[in-house]
């Protein structure tokens, strides 16, 4: 059932908000022991929120998200509800304010079922770096969910929420959505406030949505987008109306397929994406090959920029004001070092170390500044493509989900696997991932549609058209 239909049923009294919430909580109890998509389940709070939502519905005052049960990634601050970033560092951290995205949903009386699992501090592509143990893919629990919003995507795929808030710094909403066979929307940088999103890389971070369809993702985005005086990087461009083109005729849309993205993908992924391109051609879209020549530099540039920003952002964790405080350390400096060394996991330490390397005098120009030059170049190359195309079609990841334990301990392999997603964050563009096929092993294959800045409406409509003609396989739990 899509969110529009759910809204109608809630408003029409066909289903009650409390009954709906209890159904999801019951499924979480039954299935999440195995999937591990939630770090914290908010049973009592969710039921109280559902009761409040029902009162609003009964008075005829419902808004789009009233009574809709969502999960929220555990790096998005929630007042009074533990927010851990899947790290020992924040294992017991209880924020004293809500992220703006959460405030906006609360203003519509949504229901928060709980906080979802993720890679520690959103650093990873498998969610296996979580201090709480990684989530498992609902399609096959021997496989990773992808990351870093692996819990968010798995919670949607397994039917443990109606939709989920995630965050995307280099593909962290789109890639796990692809791995778990759901739809993942990364909005244009500046569309959703980052206030209350625990910062990883501030020039790249953006809150996004995992959902069962493009229309659902746009539906949720309508309620969380917009200007926020607490985040000066939110855009003054009027937002909303993201589902207004859903169902419209998309013939005549010009779709570019950059050849470099296909070159590094597995044969199964390449075939599925090219088949999707043929589908669009059959609808009257123009499909043509295009090029993003600087893609070969993208992963390195992304990791240098994001790690440099992470090294700075994570310097706030000293164990004194909040977060894990070590029992060791005789003096101030030693206490901070002990707290950080005990509190952060290995991947987070690697990123902080890499960031400080990139920012060191002697390396700064060759690494950090060159990465920034590449960022300028990639933005220009995207602008060139969009002078002739309306949408860009790529794989979401070079391969489908892999078995747990296969490559998580090889950082270079893990980083290289981000090749299909990082340029979107580098250029600040919107993109949406949906399932375009299944591997021989039965795992979902994802394709991404990238749009012009602030043109989410078009990619949602183009994605929705594909989803209407290609039914996704349900997970068997």
């Amino acid at each position, binding site marked *: 059932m899509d969110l529009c239909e759910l809204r109608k049923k809630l408003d029409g009294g066909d289903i009650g908000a409390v009954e709906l919430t209890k159904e999801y909580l019951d499924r979480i109890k039954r299935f999440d022991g195995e999937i591990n998509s939630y770090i914290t389940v908010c049973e009592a709070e969710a039921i109280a929120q559902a009761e409040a939502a029902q009162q609003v519905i009964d008075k005829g005052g419902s808004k789009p998200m009233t009574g809709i049960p969502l999960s929220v990634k555990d790096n998005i601050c929630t007042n009074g509800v533990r927010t851990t970033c899947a790290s020992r560092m924040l294992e*017991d*951290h*209880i924020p*004293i*304010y809500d992220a703006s995205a959460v405030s906006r949903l609360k203003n519509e009386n949504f229901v928060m079922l709980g906080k979802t699992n993720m890679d520690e501090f959103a650093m990873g592509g498998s969610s296996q770096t979580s201090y709480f143990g990684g989530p498992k893919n609902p399609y096959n629990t021997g496989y990773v969910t992808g990351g870093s919003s692996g819990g968010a995507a798995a919670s949607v795929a397994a039917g443990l929420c109606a939709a989920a808030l995630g965050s995307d710094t280099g593909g962290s909403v789109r890639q796990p959505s692809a791995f778990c066979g759901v739809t993942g929307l990364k909005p244009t940088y500046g569309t959703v406030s980052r206030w209350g999103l625990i910062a990883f890389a501030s020039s790249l971070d953006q809150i996004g949505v995992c959902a069962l369809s493009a229309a659902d993702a746009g539906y949720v985005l309508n309620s969380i987008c917009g*200007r926020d005086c*607490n985040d*000066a*990087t939110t855009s*003054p461009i009027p937002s909303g109306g993201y589902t207004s083109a859903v169902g419209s005729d998309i013939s005549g849309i010009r779709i570019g397929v950059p050849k470099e993205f296909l070159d590094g993908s597995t044969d199964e992924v390449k075939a599925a994406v090219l088949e999707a391109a043929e589908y669009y051609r059959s609808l009257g879209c123009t499909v043509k090959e295009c090029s993003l020549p600087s893609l*070969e*530099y993208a*992963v*390195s540039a992304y*990791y*240098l920029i994001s790690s440099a920003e992470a090294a700075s952002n994570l*310097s706030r964790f*000293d*164990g*004194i*004001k*909040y*977060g*894990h*405080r070590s029992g060791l*350390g005789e*003096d*101030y400096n*030693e*206490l*901070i*070092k*002990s707290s*950080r*060394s005990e509190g952060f996991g290995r991947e987070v*330490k*690697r990123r*902080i*170390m*890499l960031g*400080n*390397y990139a920012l*060191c005098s002697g390396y700064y120009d*060759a*690494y950090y*500044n*060159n*990465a*920034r*030059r*590449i*960022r*300028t*170049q990639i*933005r*220009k190359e995207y602008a060139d493509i969009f002078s002739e195309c309306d949408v860009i079609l790529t794989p979401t990841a070079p391969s489908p989900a892999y078995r747990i334990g296969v490559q998580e301990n090889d*950082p*270079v392999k893990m*980083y*290289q696997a981000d090749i299909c997603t990082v340029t979107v964050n580098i250029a600040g563009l919107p993109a949406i991932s949906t399932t375009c096929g299944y591997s021989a092993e039965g795992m979902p294959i994802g394709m991404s549609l990238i749009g012009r800045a602030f043109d989410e409406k078009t990619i949602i409509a183009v994605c929705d058209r594909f989803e209407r003609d290609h039914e996704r396989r349900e997970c068997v739990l």
Partner: protein
Amino acid sequence: MVDEKLTAHLAELSKLEFTDEELADMTKDMTDIIGLMDKVCGFESGAEPYTLEAADYKALREDKYEASYPSEDILRNADKVKNDSFVVPKVV
């Protein structure tokens, strides 16, 4: 080439500490990772380093007094608190 001396220097900048075994492991990881990062050193173009476009400063909050969070709330997440203050090891 990353050696243990450089790794130890980065650890100091990062306010992290490693055992000898961890330092050796991290040195290997950093060697592999920086090998991947070396790719950017070969990039040549006239492109200027990207800077995030200036925010719309008209949207900044009005510069006026507003009540802050209660200090008891702010202190709640600290491990050691005394007299409404964070406790740190003796500095002087």
